């Protein structure tokens, strides 16, 4: 006896609604995302305000990436936000209640990824566009060689870079969730999220040659590539392959988490 038949769609909706309730009912969600927004916009304004207009090199100056420079740090908040979505359940023991209520653990993980990822994507896009517009407002007051420093969304590559930055924050959220689901401890998962930076440092140290392809697989640089309109660093991946690298990181980690979640005792 397995109870009344319930359609797959209804079961999926039940899970998504449940995960949304979990996410919206704790303060840390709002604190993390509002804090990230304030920091990203603040750093973007500061970076734009401190651009030196004398001897500006137009071949390397990237007005978009300048306004988004806060995202370099804010991605850690998104990674931790993703990790906490699941490690907080392991830390409190709530995960047993969750898995007893829904023994289909992969479906739980998928629902969590969908809801947490959606929150990360919306917050990431809002923050990226806010930081972009804030930064351009400051840059529009600056000129070099008779040109205004700011750009608009209509300029080549700009919309992709700004929307891409939000997409990258979405990816980092999922990477955090995947790491959290694999590691199952808050502190360990946060340390692993920090590896996003350490990975870039290590690859830089081991493969210092400017034509090395190793950098094409570094998550941090994929994010930098996506959110820039000047690809002046040769060991960054190209924009299309940067998107592919991002998706691959999230997919591999979530698939690993999905593989492990049914094989380990809760």
């Amino acid at each position, binding site marked *: 006896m397995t109870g009344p038949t*319930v359609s797959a769609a209804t*079961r999926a909706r039940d899970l998504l609604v449940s995960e949304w309730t979990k996410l919206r009912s704790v303060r840390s969600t709002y604190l993390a995302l509002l804090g990230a927004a304030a920091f990203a916009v603040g750093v973007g304004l500061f970076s734009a305000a401190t651009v030196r207009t004398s001897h500006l090199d137009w071949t390397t100056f990237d007005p978009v990436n300048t306004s988004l420079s806060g995202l370099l740090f804010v991605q850690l908040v998104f990674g931790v936000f993703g990790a906490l979505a699941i490690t907080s359940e392991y830390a409190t023991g709530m995960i047993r*209640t969750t898995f007893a209520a829904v*023994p289909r653990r992969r479906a739980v993980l998928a629902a969590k990824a969908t809801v947490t990822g959606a929150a990360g994507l919306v917050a990431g896009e809002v923050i990226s566009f806010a930081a972009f517009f804030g930064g351009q407002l400051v840059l529009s007051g600056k000129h070099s060689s008779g040109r205004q420093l700011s750009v608009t969304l209509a300029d080549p590559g700009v919309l992709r870079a700004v929307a891409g930055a939000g997409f990258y924050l979405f990816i980092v959220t999922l990477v955090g969730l995947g790491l959290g689901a694999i590691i199952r401890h808050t502190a360990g998962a946060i340390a692993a999220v920090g590896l996003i930076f350490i990975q870039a440092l290590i690859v830089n140290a081991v493969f210092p040659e400017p034509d090395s392809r190793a950098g094409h697989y570094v998550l941090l640089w994929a994010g930098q590539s996506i959110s820039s309109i000047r690809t002046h660093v040769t060991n960054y991946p190209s924009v299309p392959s940067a998107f592919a690298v991002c998706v691959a990181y999230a997919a591999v980690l979530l698939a690993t988490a999905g593989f492990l979640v049914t094989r380990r005792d809760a």
Partner: protein
Amino acid sequence: MIEVHELTKRYASTLAVDRMSFRVRPGHVTGFLGPNGAGKSTTLRMILGLDAPTSGEVLVNDGRYVSLVRPLRQVGALLDANAVHGGRSAADHLLCIAQSNGIGRGRVREVLQIAGIDQVARKRVGGFSLGMKQRLGIAAALLGDPAVLIFDEPVNGLDPDGIQWIRGLLSALAGEGRTVFVASHLMSEMAITADRVIVIGRGKLIADASVAEFVRSGSPGDVLVRSPRAADLARLLTDQHAVVITEPAGGLAVSGLDAPAISKTAAAHDIPVYELTTRRPTLEAAYMELVDGTAQYRADAAGRAGRGGRP
């Protein structure tokens, strides 16, 4: 109905649960007893599909737990009252659990009332006392109005009011024909609330019986006698084949004769009696004897394996 068949759980070097089989029947409160580390919690987690058995299986309402579509509508469980996110309100905690099984907000309000925590429903759980968290955990177990209920130490942290409440609740749930399975260390509490007991030790089943049968299987009880001529009385009682032991606090512990027989003997010899107290066997005494028994069992291997167990 919960059916456990040859259930075994091995961690690296320890056998936490060793070929355990028992059945928990509907319409009763069944106590699940055993010392720390006996395998109670591991068994409960395997019943709920949280831990995978090394071998053997568990059937809940004739099906495997992991194949239940909306398990909370069939099985409600409280494993650990502290396993809640402290930042969430009681109502939101229950709501997210309810929603995962297609249970509505109306039922969340009902269980908050049943558990007596509707006044604090909007408060963050982190500020709750252990007793209030127990009530919250019991509310969560009741969400799906399930036919099978599993509670691990539900009395923990409850005040006397709360204890009265849960006694009434457990017997009411069993009275409605539900299967109620309660793991506990508190023998005096189980003696009051449980109709049946399943006792395990070292991962093995050592008894599965009604509370009355189980208590009878232990020491038969005795009579405490105080008298100023205790030595004379003891000799007379021993002559009638009673076993008389002098207690450390004075007084005689007499077994083999009941209080009327002792009283008559004393009266016939003009021996004054200051106290004559029948001490009935208790669940706790029977349990202690059985747990000591498992220690013996370990010492002399094969001997008493089947004692009180199901065939």
